[in-house]
């Protein structure tokens, strides 16, 4: 199950749906908004997505995962809109008979999401705003105060 949502991610609900009587292990990755980034203090941030393409690519990631490992349930969910420090931005959850598959697939899922899914993060600092471009850089053209 994959989705892009605008409302808070309910991790407990995801957990309730992910386990199954045939599963021995579930791995869950929870990505939250940090209070610092690129040496600046983050006040809030905004995720925007090319939503239909993002959902299509997340579904393709689920397919890839099922081809590579024997898995039971998969949940990949990303939130968009304005988020604050501590808010959950993304969850990848995988249940499997054995823990090795659960860990590998869960790691693969979040790595792939960060690599290919068309979602962009704009960070708001006291000093201004910036788009995060890729996993390591920020683009200051948006506007830092002098």
């Amino acid at each position, binding site marked *: 199950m994959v989705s892009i949502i605008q409302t808070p991610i309910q991790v407990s609900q995801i957990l309730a749906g992910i386990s199954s009587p045939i599963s021995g292990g579930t791995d869950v990755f929870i*990505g939250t908004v940090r209070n610092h980034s690129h040496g600046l203090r983050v006040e809030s941030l905004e*995720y*925007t*997505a*090319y939503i*239909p*393409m*993002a959902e*299509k690519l997340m579904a393709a990631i689920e397919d890839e995962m099922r081809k590579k490992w024997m898995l039971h349930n998969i949940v990949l969910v*990303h939130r968009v809109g304005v988020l604050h420090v501590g808010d959950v*931005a*993304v969850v990848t959850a995988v249940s499997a008979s054995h823990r090795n598959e659960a860990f590998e697939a869960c790691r693969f899922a*979040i790595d792939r*999401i*960060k*690599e*290919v*899914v*068309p*979602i*962009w*993060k*704009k960070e708001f600092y006291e000093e201004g705003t910036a*788009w*995060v*471009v*890729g*996993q390591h*850089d920020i*683009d200051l*053209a*948006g506007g830092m105060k002098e």
Partner: protein
Amino acid sequence: MINVTLKLFGPLRDVMQRDELQLQVPPPYKGDTAFELLTLSNPLLLRWRPSVRLAVNMEYTSFDHVLKSGDEICFIPPVSGG
């Protein structure tokens, strides 16, 4: 000329101040052709050329992909989800 819909996101959206544009792309109708057309209207986009990827109808493809009328295209700046 062919007509395509261009979607704009992230920093490219901020440069163009638009979510979407209709483009009339001249021959040879490639992804590159569309990007060059766009930079004519706003040269600030030039700096993004090395880092954007092209998606046509929501699939990543190469810049020499030949566009058809009615395609939905997007120049995808480096993503930062997660």
